């Protein structure tokens, strides 16, 4: 297993290199530059700004400088939109809120989703199954930009239990975590039900029952291991997305997270911030997909590290 992980970590280097290179040149091909905003700039100011950010150098030189800074110093550069701030500072500043919201939502998603999915699969084609499936379908049909305002309307404005926006105390955490969590719970529930139904008819489950294992043991010890396979595959990339913040949720609930920067940096042509967020996301994707592959082998003894 350690050889497997070591090899995968080595593979990460070319993957990150390709992502950084592709993104670097992709953002440069987009028309418009970081200083084409609404503020009128004289040619002199513009020239000085470009010199300050090193944007007047030939493109390949800029690319080599960027690689040099990132690889040797871990320095993601200065943001062109947020003057006087570095990308490292922006990420350090905004990532914690996104991660906290992400972990809370993930908890909601796993608790609700797994419970609903397992229940639906075990009590297949009964009222419980339909109720759990209806819950899951509602979570899928109602997008976050509808569910968020709805929850705010009911629980913040009419009932006054939780606050509608902001990011200070625990009352600010409830509604955004629920909104984001319910969507992922719906996915987890559907995939868990599907995965469980695949394995509940397998011979090894019959064997487990035949040898007298209790129903709970059959479900949690034997069926869940195989049944979680599709859920785990889904959760790898989904977790990367959920931890780096959600544009919609952060906008609705006014949360100072990183999710908005993913979209806004592209609109602002903030080259360094685009690259910084992409590198962060890429590291998470690669790392979590590695975790997924390890967990899959652990879940299914027929798999091997290869």
């Amino acid at each position: 297993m350690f050889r497997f992980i070591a090899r995968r970590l080595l593979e990460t280097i070319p993957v990150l290199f390709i992502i950084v290179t592709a993104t670097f040149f992709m953002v440069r091909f987009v028309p418009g530059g970081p200083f084409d905003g609404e503020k009128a700039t004289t040619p002199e100011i513009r020239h000085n700004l470009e010199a300050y950010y090193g944007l007047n150098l030939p493109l390949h030189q800029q690319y080599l400088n960027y690689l040099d800074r990132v690889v040797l110093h871990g320095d993601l550069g200065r943001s062109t939109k947020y003057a006087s701030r570095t990308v490292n500072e922006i990420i350090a500043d905004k990532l914690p809120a996104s991660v906290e919201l992400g972990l809370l939502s993930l908890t909601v998603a796993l608790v609700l989703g797994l419970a609903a999915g397992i229940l639906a699969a075990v009590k297949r084609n009964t009222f419980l199954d339909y109720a759990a499936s209806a819950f899951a379908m509602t979570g899928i049909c109602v997008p976050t930009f509808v569910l968020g305002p709805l929850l705010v309307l009911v629980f913040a404005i009419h009932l006054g239990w939780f606050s509608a926006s902001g990011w200070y105390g625990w009352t600010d955490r409830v509604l955004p975590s629920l909104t984001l969590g319910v969507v992922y719970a719906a996915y987890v529930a559907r995939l868990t039900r599907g995965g469980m139904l695949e394995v509940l008819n397998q011979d090894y489950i019959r064997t487990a029952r035949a040898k007298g294992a209790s129903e709970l043991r059959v479900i949690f010890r034997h069926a869940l291991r195989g049944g979680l396979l599709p859920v785990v595959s889904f959760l790898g990339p989904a977790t990367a997305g959920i931890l780096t913040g959600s544009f919609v949720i952060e906008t609705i609930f006014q949360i100072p997270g990183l999710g908005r920067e993913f979209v806004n940096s592209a609109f602002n042509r903030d080259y360094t911030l685009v690259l910084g967020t992409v590198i962060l996301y890429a590291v998470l994707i690669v790392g979590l997909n590695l975790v997924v592959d390890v967990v899959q082998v652990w879940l299914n003894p027929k798999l091997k590290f290869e």
Partner: protein
Amino acid sequence: MLSPSPEKLPSAGLPPTLEPGTSPWRDAWHRLSRNRLAVFGGVILIVLTALCVAGPWFMGNDYQSQDLRLGAVPPNAAHWLGTDTLGRDLFSRLLYGGRISLLVGFIATVVALVIGVTYGAIAGFFGGKLDSVMMRIVDILYALPFTIFVILLMVFFGRNIWLLFFAIGAVEWLTMSRIVRGQIMSIKRMEYIEAARSLGFGRRRIIFRHMIPNILGPVIVYTTLTIPAVMLLEAFLSFLGLGVQPPMSSWGVLIKDGAEKMEEYPWLLIFPATLFSLTLFSLNFLGDGLRDALDVRSSKD
């Protein structure tokens, strides 16, 4: 189980004394047609599609004519589902929007399905170096910034509805391929695959005839999850400028607009959201029915 059931043997090897079996696909069709919920879902989907395709021809109101003096009015005899703030008839906007949403949902999902299943199955089946390279490519595609990609598409190719399918299809197959790969890896050492191998079947036949039919369950479930995701992603892309432009509309865009006015003009959210949910619920029932119908094991009970 002393004698294997006929379906489990390749038909070439059947002794002539056995009664001729039906193909698994016909069995599945038969089981599906007896599942009332699935048939119901299928019928609703067909009716909705027919309404969206043919409905606008018979409508008295079109989707773009405004009546500013009217403004937003609740449902009434002239406008069955009311009008939006510009006095446009919501019902015809919904039907026209349905054409776009159903088309996007269908085409982008088929693209994602075909690429994702084939790619994931090949990576999972062959494993080793090929799998490593293929999955690292998936990692790279996951990480590339989607917003930038969409803007670049528009810059180089202009606004085009086909680009929308391409942009959505290009990202939605990634998770599908990882799910399929995991499932293929988990069954590739099972006995019946060994049996197929020892019978001398080619790899292509083993992958497409023996393995993929056995992992269709998760594939169908994830497909029914992809369709709503795709339809909502279209609303985001329309916001970016790729996708449908006003005055044309789509369900995603209508829901998004309705959500902003839900307190003042609730019908602008309720009707699009209801139609959207009805479509997805039907699709889901049909998907669950398909899954059950294709599950050879459960049908033997």
